[in-house]
């Protein structure tokens, strides 16, 4: 039996389509073997690497993965944490321990830290088989997102938006002067000096999403950005310098005091009065 490849590199395949025949090829995720045939198990684009046939998905929901940096929205406040929307079928929980290094009193109003409807950049630290998800805010660059706008893209196009070694996103950042924070779940935060600059960045991101499956995208984007901004744009060469991400900053809390002011003294730090169970008491 000779090994034959029925689909070429970058071909779009649909479920059930025969991609390759023969035991010489190995199917990777998204493809399945049936006898000697390798068939597509979902819609996607074919990539051949030696003997391994790969399928790059083009559409579909985001499935939370360990260590992914994602942008989430706070949707509920729990007893000891927050529930956030991850833009997948499942919501995630941000526990108090993973949210802040500060001491949080038992009766504290948690919306002081993260209020309902706020967006955060966080990292997934645990995903169970039943898709219960834990996230953390402890890590470089993880923060609450303020002053900017949210762009929704297909989560499978995120690698193209980032580009090789972050070249695409860097080019868009340099051209528009905006800070672009990309979450693996396809939510992107754009923060710029002016609304016009932000809209340019949004247009550029949407353009990459639209043309993500086409070859020669970087060149196309260079032209697109030059037309958009009216300035020459450089394609970042080689490894770009590590982006200096803002260090984990302690969020200044909004003081929310009960009427009368003076703060809540019932849960002050530590107990007052003599300590209990002092050795040698009896």
């Amino acid at each position, binding site marked *: 039996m000779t090994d034959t490849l029925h689909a070429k590199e970058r071909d779009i395949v649909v479920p059930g389509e025969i991609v390759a025949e023969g035991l010489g090829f190995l199917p990777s995720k998204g493809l399945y073997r*049936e006898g000697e045939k390798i068939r597509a198990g979902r*819609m996607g684009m074919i990539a051949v690497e030696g003997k391994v046939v790969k399928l790059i998905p*083009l559409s579909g929901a985001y499935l939370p993965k360990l260590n992914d940096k994602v942008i989430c929205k706070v949707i509920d406040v729990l007893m000891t944490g927050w529930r956030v929307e991850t833009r997948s079928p499942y919501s995630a929980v941000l526990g108090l321990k993973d949210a802040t290094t500060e001491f949080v009193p038992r009766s504290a109003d948690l919306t002081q830290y993260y209020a309902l409807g706020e967006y955060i950049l966080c990292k997934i630290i645990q995903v169970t088989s039943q898709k219960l998800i834990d996230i953390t805010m402890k890590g470089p660059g993880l923060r609450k997102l303020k002053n900017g706008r949210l762009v929704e893209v297909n989560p499978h196009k995120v690698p193209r938006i980032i580009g090789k070694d972050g070249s695409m996103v860097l080019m868009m950042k340099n051209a528009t002067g905006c800070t672009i924070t990309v979450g693996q779940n396809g939510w992107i935060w754009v923060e710029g000096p002016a609304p016009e600059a932000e809209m340019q960045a949004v247009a550029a991101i949407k353009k990459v999403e639209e043309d993500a499956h086409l070859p020669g995208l970087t060149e196309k984007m260079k032209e697109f950005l030059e037309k958009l901004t009216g300035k020459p744009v450089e394609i970042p060469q080689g490894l770009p310098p590590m982006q200096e991400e803002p260090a984990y900053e302690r969020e200044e809390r909004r003081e929310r005091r009960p009427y009368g002011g003076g703060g809540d003294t019932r849960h002050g730090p530590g107990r007052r009065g003599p300590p209990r169970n002092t050795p040698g008491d009896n």
Partner: protein
Amino acid sequence: MAAKAVKIEYKKRSDGRSWEELRPIEAKTGIVPRADGSASFKIGHTLAYAAVYGPRDLHPKFMQNPETGILRCRYNMMPFSGHGERVRPGTSRRSQEISMLMSKALLPVLDLKDYPNSVVDVFVELPETDAGTRCAGISAAAMALADAGLAMKDLVVSFSMGYYDGQIMCDLSGYEDCDVGVSDIPVAYIPSMDKFSLLQLDGEVPKEDLIKILQLAKKKALDMYKVQQESLKAKYRQGE
């Protein structure tokens, strides 16, 4: 259809097709931009729109299955879709049954194990109907599910077969189904597995002929399968 008091002589198809010919097919993918996946499937004067949402959070909670995601279909004929007779809006016994058998016809190719406790919703709307609505619905839904990027073993191809007076025919029109009283045999076929996921029979047919009908159905299904595949790929050809 109920047996006719007077048997109509039907020696040639009313729309001029040959017995084995399918009606003209038009398929489009990505017709509902806000949906996760969508497709339209037109065969003759039967038109089906399918939109897929999900996998997404499932409520009510008692419907959740911790082992796998579930598939929920909704089949709906629009009030103005038929032949003058207004279809009462909302679900009926008929549409509920068809919704159920649609999800049963599609489930063998779907793998929702990666999405426990979630649901994939498939909405099928029929603005224009001329027999074979469940089949057009299944064909459109299969394309929409593939467009939504779900893990699928294959597409599902569906159309109806007919039998009248010893004559086997493919893809009944409304006239043949309702007025002539041809035995209606809707089938859904999964090409890669070589299996039928839907087989119904409304009327009478001898056993030997039923086997012949299914063999012919397998052959004709491949034509329709190509149209589905091409239309799915066409979505990504634009702009090249």
